[in-house]
């Protein structure tokens, strides 16, 4: 797993403390003011996410999902409350947290391998170990034969795999994904989801996954956070106690349908 990162703070000696959450939100809020008028993008969110958990955020457009992720990533500062990663308040981006966007944002003048190694260059540690790691991650996302290819030679799905490999190479503990496969077709997306689950489970990475797709959220997650807009807030949570590993066939099960129904119920009527 993550041998290079220190263990989360052990509790005070003598107490049997519960495991510390890896990501925590305490009254996390954000209000944007655009030319005088104020928009509450997110109303105080309280949330505790366990290490290794796969948690999805669903909700209609404008309910503050991206805003939430951006604050956890340290790309946006809250106007109320705080986000904590490993018990420390987030003030700026950190290597413990990787952020995957809807677009792959590959650099077209770099090969797949060079793109994947870009963060390592930024961190100033592009040694043999990192190169080997990059190779094995590229292999793991199914692009073993494309290390020397340029982005324009790859399909959209393959480009997102490169973006994923770029993050996995620097071994973050938390992976934030903002509709990462939203631009892909249904088939590619399903395949990507399965692979994402397999890889992040194997590496013990905590995933915060934003999507518009309820089925996808229920299928992959340990927990689904349901959000509603105006003002953006968490209106409910659903534990997904389905066994793992999960196969596509699971979607035909009654338990699965019930969970989807439950999520829809919280969202209220009229959401696709």
């Amino acid at each position, binding site marked *: 797993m993550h041998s290079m990162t220190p263990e989360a703070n052990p509790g005070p000696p003598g107490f049997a403390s519960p495991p510390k959450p890896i990501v925590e939100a305490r009254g996390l809020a954000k209000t944007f003011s655009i030319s005088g008028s104020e928009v509450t993008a997110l109303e105080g969110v309280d949330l505790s996410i366990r290490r290794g958990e796969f948690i999805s955020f669903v909700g209609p457009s404008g309910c503050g999902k991206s805003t939430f992720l951006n604050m956890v990533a340290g790309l946006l500062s809250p106007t109320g409350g705080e986000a904590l990663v490993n018990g420390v308040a987030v003030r700026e981006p950190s290597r413990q947290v990787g952020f995957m966007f809807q677009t792959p944002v590959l650099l*077209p003048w770099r090969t797949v391998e060079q793109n994947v190694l*870009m963060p390592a260059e*930024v961190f100033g540690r592009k040694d043999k170990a990192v190169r080997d790691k990059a190779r094995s991650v590229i292999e793991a996302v199914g692009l073993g034969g494309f290390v020397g290819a340029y982005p*324009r030679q790859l399909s959209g799905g393959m*480009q997102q795999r490169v973006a994923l490999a770029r993050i996995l190479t620097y071994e973050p503990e938390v992976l934030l994904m903002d509709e990462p496969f939203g631009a892909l077709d249904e088939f590619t997306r399903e395949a990507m989801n399965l692979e994402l689950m397999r890889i992040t489970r194997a590496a013990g990475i905590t995933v915060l996954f934003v999507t518009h797709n309820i089925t996808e959220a229920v299928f992959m997650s340990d927990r689904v956070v349901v959000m509603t807009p105006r003002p953006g807030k968490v209106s409910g949570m659903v534990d997904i106690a389905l066994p793992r590993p999960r196969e596509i066939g699971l979607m035909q099960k009654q338990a699965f349908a019930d969970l989807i129904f439950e999520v829809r119920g919280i969202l209220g009527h009229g959401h696709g």
Partner: protein
Amino acid sequence: MAMASINATASNNVRAGGLSEQWRYRLISLVIIVVLLAAWEFAPRAGLVSAIILPPLSKVAHALLTLVQQDFFMRHFTVTLREILIGFVLGTLIGFGIGTALAIWPAVKRVSYPFVVGFQAIPKIVFAPLFIAWFGFGETSKVVMAVVIAFFPVLINTLVGLESVPEDARRLMRSIRATQLQTFYKVSLPHALPVIFAGVKAALTFAVIGAIVGEFVGASEGLGYLVDLYNHQLRIDRVFAVITILAAIGAGGYFLLEWLDAKLIFWRNEEGR
């Protein structure tokens, strides 16, 4: 990046269209050139235009061949070539420097952009007599003129190119805690390079204009000086000969830049034009 993959497909289609199409266009261009050159030869001979105003092509060709063999010609040629090259290089560097500063520091842009735009509104040729007065009849005044005309397209294209870096790319760099400098040379600069290069090509053309205009206004050597001289002597064949040489300098430089462009910005391929 979805863009890139679409582009790649487009280029494949063009290639499927085949080389023959490209050659057909080249053939048409060639025919037009031949017709124009033939008209140039025969119109003066037939008396359609005065041979003094427009000497026939063969006379110009002859003038060109004799001119390039003269000792004094090489001196004029190198003077102008040097003015153009120095003006072009300095103009490019200055344009790139200012454009980068404007893109990186929003405060600098807000303060100085009105001056930049205002300066561009001036037809800079009016400075030529002034530069002669300030920097003398020598090469310096011509170089300054070339720089002043040439730097602007590079400045604007650098600014536009650097500012067009996608927001997600910036966020990516922030999320891995890249420094401003790292973001600049790993993402922004390569991203802007194709646009900057278009400005650099324009700068070359402008540097030629600047040097020649400077020589027109006041000089004792250079190709612009020769054009002016032969014009007064009504040796129009030689005027055309020098113009041909100037055109060759401009075209040569341009093709050199095109070649460099294709080498440097290899990821764009032919479809990006």
